[in-house]
């Protein structure tokens, strides 16, 4: 009995470590991929000095950030200022715990599910964690004791709570189709057809809202550099800034993996193993997001709010009603 517990515990630690390492590596190399791709879109080369093709650039960046001075501005709320970046980064990383990255593996005769934890409310857990991520922005900006930070934080909070609503509502049809909140069941329900073909409207709403949640161009008002310097993280430096930066890219990876799980069939795909398919799908979503960043200008504040409240939310609600009606018609 004890042996069984210990082996389960060790397995959990190994799974956690592997998932975390993969997530951090993905995020680090996503930064490089983004810089390279943006550079190509703007007809320049991008980072190419550290290692072959600039492949060691993320490591060089990490060393630079660790070596920098950690400045806490005068008048700042020191405790909240210190912990806000950790909230932003950890909430982003914890979401990945419910994402399944493959079919269950059989080792020494016992099946090992390739997911850190299969919660029966996994979808809600992911939404809850993404809504807790707002605190990193809000508290970090407030605690900095600077106009730019506070303005950025206020904008960030307004934007994130406005787009959380369509983000959640766009997933209701997915739950109706798969009869479950568990991400493992949602992936299993897409064995024959990914939900993007059945719910294209939901996919569009989710994708746009997810982009607003990550605060990327064209939704980067909280850190608009020509008005607010860097918005909520203006006063941060060194590794604390690094945590905000890491949180942003980890959220990009986790939201990409959630898009893959909810709409693109998760790890399902022909020929290749499941983990590879999930990676390919995440990379494809990240590429589209980088492409959009390289193409579109920033929204105006009122356009941003109008799109969230007057367009995406009503469309999501209508989509739920239509899906419910069609499901009732099919079952009748």
């Amino acid at each position, binding site marked *: 009995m004890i042996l069984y517990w210990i082996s389960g515990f060790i397995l959990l630690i190994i799974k956690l470590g592997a998932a975390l390492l993969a997530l951090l590596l993905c995020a680090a190399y996503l930064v490089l991929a983004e810089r390279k791709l943006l550079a190509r879109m703007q007809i320049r080369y991008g980072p190419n000095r550290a290692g072959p093709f600039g492949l060691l650039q993320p490591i060089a960046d990490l060393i630079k950030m660790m070596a920098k001075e950690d400045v806490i501005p005068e008048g700042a709320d020191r405790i909240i200022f210190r912990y806000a970046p950790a909230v932003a980064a950890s909430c982003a990383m914890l979401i990945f715990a419910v994402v399944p990255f493959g079919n269950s593996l059989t080792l020494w005769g016992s099946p090992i599910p390739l997911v850190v934890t299969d919660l*029966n*409310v996994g979808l809600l857990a992911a939404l*809850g964690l993404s809504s807790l991520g*707002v605190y990193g922005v*809000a508290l970090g900006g407030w605690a900095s004791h600077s106009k730019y930070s506070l303005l950025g*934080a206020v904008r960030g*909070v307004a934007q994130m709570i406005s787009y959380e609503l369509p983000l959640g509502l766009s997933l209701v049809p997915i739950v109706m189709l798969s009869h479950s909140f568990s991400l493992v069941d949602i992936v299993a329900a897409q064995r024959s057809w990914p939900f993007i073909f059945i719910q294209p409207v939901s996919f569009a709403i989710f994708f746009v809202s997810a982009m607003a949640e990550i605060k990327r161009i064209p939704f980067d008002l909280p850190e608009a550099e020509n008005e607010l310097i860097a918005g909520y993280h203006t006063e941060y430096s060194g590794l604390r800034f690094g945590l905000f930066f890491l949180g942003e890219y980890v959220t990009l990876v986790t939201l990409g993996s959630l898009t893959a799980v909810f709409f693109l069939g998760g790890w399902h795909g022909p020929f290749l193993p499941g983990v590879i398919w999930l990676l390919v799908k995440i990379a494809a979503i990240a590429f589209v997001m980088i492409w959009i960043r390289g193409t579109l200008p920033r929204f105006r504040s009122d356009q941003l709010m109008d799109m969230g409240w007057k367009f995406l939310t009503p469309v999501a609600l209508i989509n739920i009603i239509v899906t419910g009606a069609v499901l009732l018609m099919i079952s009748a």
Partner: protein
Amino acid sequence: MTLFNILLYLAAAVVVVATGFAITRQNIVHAACYLIVSFMGTAVLFYLLGAPLLAALEVIIYAGGIMVLFLFVIMMIQYPPPSTRKAFSAKTWCPAMILVGICGLLAGILVFADPANRLRPVAVTATPQAFGDILFQGYWFPVEITSLLLLAALIGAMYLGRHNKRDNGK
């Protein structure tokens, strides 16, 4: 004492301590942060008592939604600095004491109803499906009434917002 009991009492202790800090802190943002911790602890309690759906809703709605709005309002308004506020007057103590009295009474009733301590917290689970079935089959009428109430509040808030705009001459 099982692992389950240890976790349960640990979460309960976190809730009590965090709530205590939330009502005694002078800095309003610190108080809000402690309240968030308290909500998270409540979510853990719900999860341990076998209601994962309630735990998730507690995090999404209370910790992630309502408290964010509180913080938003705190950031928008200029609150008086701690030194100028009178923190512990009779006005603040009296309601707190009444509440403590009620809680003490309820705890006493609970303890005396089961003096042999036979009722122990045990691990049970209610799946989201079971929860939804009970809520929308047995209690559909209260749910509808509540949603009507929220709709009325929403329309009222919208009316107030519109009214202000006209006064400004826009």
